[in-house]
């Protein structure tokens, strides 16, 4: 029952080797005949239309943005949750204030239509 992160390190190394070994095996076994046609980018078999770059809607960024800020919120939420039953009412009120402020953020995003996928 100790925080032996060492296992995590070892385990992640092993986990990293699994796909590598897999690919090596596949690399050995599979036929290897690259051809110009084969290597064109796949677009349902059609010729590629337009260059491969395109302009994305800013919507994606807004989702990521809100996700980041709420993610940080949870970072603060966890210590409180874990220490909840060891802290008094005061901590509860403080956390409610914290959540209220961020709820305002969510409401603003919602109201301003930042959450719409469109």
């Amino acid at each position: 029952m100790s925080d032996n992160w060492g296992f995590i390190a070892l385990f992640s190394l092993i986990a990293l080797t699994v796909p590598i070994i897999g690919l090596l095996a596949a690399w050995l076994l599979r036929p290897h005949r690259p051809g110009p046609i084969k290597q064109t980018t796949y677009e349902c078999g059609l010729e590629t239309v337009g260059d491969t770059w395109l302009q994305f809607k800013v919507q994606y960024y807004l989702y990521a943005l809100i996700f980041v800020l709420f993610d940080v919120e949870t970072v603060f939420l966890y210590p409180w949750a874990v220490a909840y039953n060891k802290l008094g009412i005061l901590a509860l009120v403080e956390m409610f204030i914290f959540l209220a402020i961020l709820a305002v953020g969510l409401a603003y995003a919602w109201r301003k239509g930042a959450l719409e996928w469109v």
Partner: protein
Amino acid sequence: MSPLLLQQIAFMVLAAISLSGAWGVIRAHSVFVSALWLILSFVGVAGLYVMLEAGFLAVIQVLVYVGAISVLILFAIMLTEDVMGQAEPASQWPLAVLIVLPFFGMLAKAAFTADWQLSAGSVAPPEGASISAETAKLVTTAIPAEQGFRLPGQVVMLGRSLMTEHLLAFEVVAVVLLVALVGAIVIARD
């Protein structure tokens, strides 16, 4: 192979990971690739946190930096990537080198020579270890423990200190996050 050496090796590996990640950010040709190197550096730093027995922080580092901020950066790159690849350094890069290297030298000298009043803090005992009454008082004054005193986990202590000593900062961060949210939305929304 003593545990000490193992730790040092582990440190070397993690340091190498983070520094090479940072180096990758500079050398990478495409902005996307430099972002990936950045992520690698973040993971390296998380590892270093683990070496410093700041487990919660390591996980937070991974969760926030790797899971959120790098996603944000990647999104931003995708949104603004106008030319794929090729990113040679800015025009005055030699001048920058002239400034950064001595800067590094000086900071390193300072780090090396400064008297940091090192304390003899030992490895933090695992959570749940039984502690004497007065220690409990010292460490977890606010936490009631009916059946004997157990050393609360680092996260619990962190929660307690966040809620008591650093309460103001805690609430202010909430406001900062709100402001950032609203601000970013206003700016980004076309």
